[in-house]
């Protein structure tokens, strides 16, 4: 019972510190902006740990963070194998192929006004559909290994990326295109020097949306069949064995991979579109 009481105390203390920081004079500095969510996250972890121990929650319902960390550290080789199977091969492979194909298709589509008019509504429509459902079909076609996961990812990221790139290629206004014309620029020159750079913010929007979709596709596709390695496989079998600490360790890996992947894209965006108003702020 004391542990539960302690948890309550930690929660109040954490909230009090954050309230002081957030309403204090230095609230707008970058350090405080990072410190406050960090304290909040830490408070939640401590409260979680104390509550699980204090209320003696069984492992099959919710393992304590310390237990998860222990399991994480002790099964690094398994986690790494799963990571490279699902993220590096399945998700990343599909991501590169899908985004690349969508980008090239967008450039082709952009040359014809008729095609663009027709493809944009269809693309928008498809982007809202539950495409993960194609996973069983693609697993049937491409087998259980990572190729089928990559295929699911390709299908998932293709349309969001296509729609964004096509929208981006329309970003230049008439004046800018006319200027390129007065320079006697060829189609390729005006594509590379004017329209692609102008499309970059949209392209990166598509790339960032696709990072999460890629991970989701690769993990869910493994629920429909996989070799005996992979994050989705590990999660579904560990759940079956009620080894929830392993499940949580995989979720930590997925969370880290997801944030890292997104962060990388955001960083790339920052270096390549430094000129855009949204980045200059």
């Amino acid at each position, binding site marked *: 019972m004391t542990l539960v009481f302690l948890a309550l105390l930690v929660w109040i203390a954490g909230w009090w510190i954050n309230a002081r920081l957030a309403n204090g004079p230095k609230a707008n500095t970058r350090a405080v902006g990072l410190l406050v969510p960090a304290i909040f996250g830490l408070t939640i972890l401590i409260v979680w740990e104390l509550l699980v121990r204090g209320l003696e929650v069984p492992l099959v319902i919710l393992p304590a963070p310390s237990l998860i960390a222990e399991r994480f550290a002790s099964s690094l080789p398994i986690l790494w194998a799963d990571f490279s199977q699902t993220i590096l091969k399945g998700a990343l492979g599909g991501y590169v192929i899908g985004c690349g194909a969508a980008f090239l298709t967008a450039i082709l589509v952009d040359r014809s006004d*008729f095609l663009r008019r027709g493809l944009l509504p269809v693309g928008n429509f498809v982007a809202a559909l539950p495409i993960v459902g194609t996973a069983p079909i693609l697993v049937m076609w491409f087998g259980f290994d990572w190729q089928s996961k990559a295929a699911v990812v390709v299908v998932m990221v293709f349309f969001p990326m296509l729609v964004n790139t096509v929208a981006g290629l329309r970003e230049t206004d008439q004046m800018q295109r006319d200027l390129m014309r007065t320079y006697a620029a060829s189609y390729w020159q005006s594509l590379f020097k004017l329209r692609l750079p102008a499309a970059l913010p949209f392209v990166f929007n598509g790339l960032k949306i696709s990072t999460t979709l890629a991970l989701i596709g690769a993990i869910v596709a493994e629920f429909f069949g996989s070799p005996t390695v992979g994050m989705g496989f590990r999660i579904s079998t560990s759940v079956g064995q009620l080894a929830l600490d392993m499940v949580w360790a995989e979720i930590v890996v997925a969370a880290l991979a*997801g944030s890292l992947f997104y962060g990388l894209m955001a960083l790339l965006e920052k270096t390549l579109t430094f000129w855009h108003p949204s980045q200059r702020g």
Partner: protein
Amino acid sequence: MKTVLAVLTVVVTLIGIWYLACVPMNIKGVLDAAERAGEQVTPATARERRDASALGLVAQNSFAIPRVWSVERPRLPAPHQVATELWDTTVMKKITSKRSLIYHAQVTLSATLMGFAIGTGLGILLAVGIVHSRVMDMSVMPWAIVSQTIPIIALAPMIIVVLYSIGVQGLLPKAIIAAYLSFFPVVVGMVKGLRSPDHMQLDLMKTYFASQGQVFWKLRLPSSMPYLFASLKIGIAASLVGAIVGELPTGAVAGLGARLLAGSYYGQTVQIWSALFAAAILAAALVALLGLLEQVLLGRMGVKP
């Protein structure tokens, strides 16, 4: 009008590509069946055909081409096969029948809607809290944004099993996953929307001596509506995906996800495709419904299109 024509062209082209793709995808199965029926097939044995390229087989056995669109268990069913299956399992079956897609869709839909309602309600509440409390804003908002980059769906099997072990089953576990998926888009969109009034408007409310409640009800909430609807559309699509994925790990017997899983176990490709299309139609209908609601509501609020 031009757009309709263009969209129709693209759709027809896609269906054409689909029909064409059926030929190389299904040719091996057709030839195996033809060989069993005693017909002349080049190359003659299944082993030789296995390593041959699909297009080569098509060229050598052109008599088999018409059959690829009516295989019993095709690798890729033809569009009309899927359409027939959809028609048979929706209109021709009684709604209460276990084989009716409407029955399965309704199971998934109820989980989706329940989860969507929970997720949206909680999301809006949290967004209101975030806008009005600086502490919550600074503590919770970064995590809400980071959580969008995480494949939350990985949690789905665990949520189902954990809830099952404490005695909760049926609709609620799926609804919780659906709620979880629609929660974060709504929070992020709603916070953006509640913050969308600019300084001028907020200052005007101040000069009217409006209380915080009045500012909320008369300015912030109305101006957040376009943002809210944009994220509701994302949220309901995510909810549907959550409900479908939530049906996978438990071996559920009813629901579109269960149909997908059963189809992939027994190699019933036509069933998978029809379940997939049912899910797609459901998603499109839900999004369209929200779009309609948005138009009516924003129209009554006097927003010009």
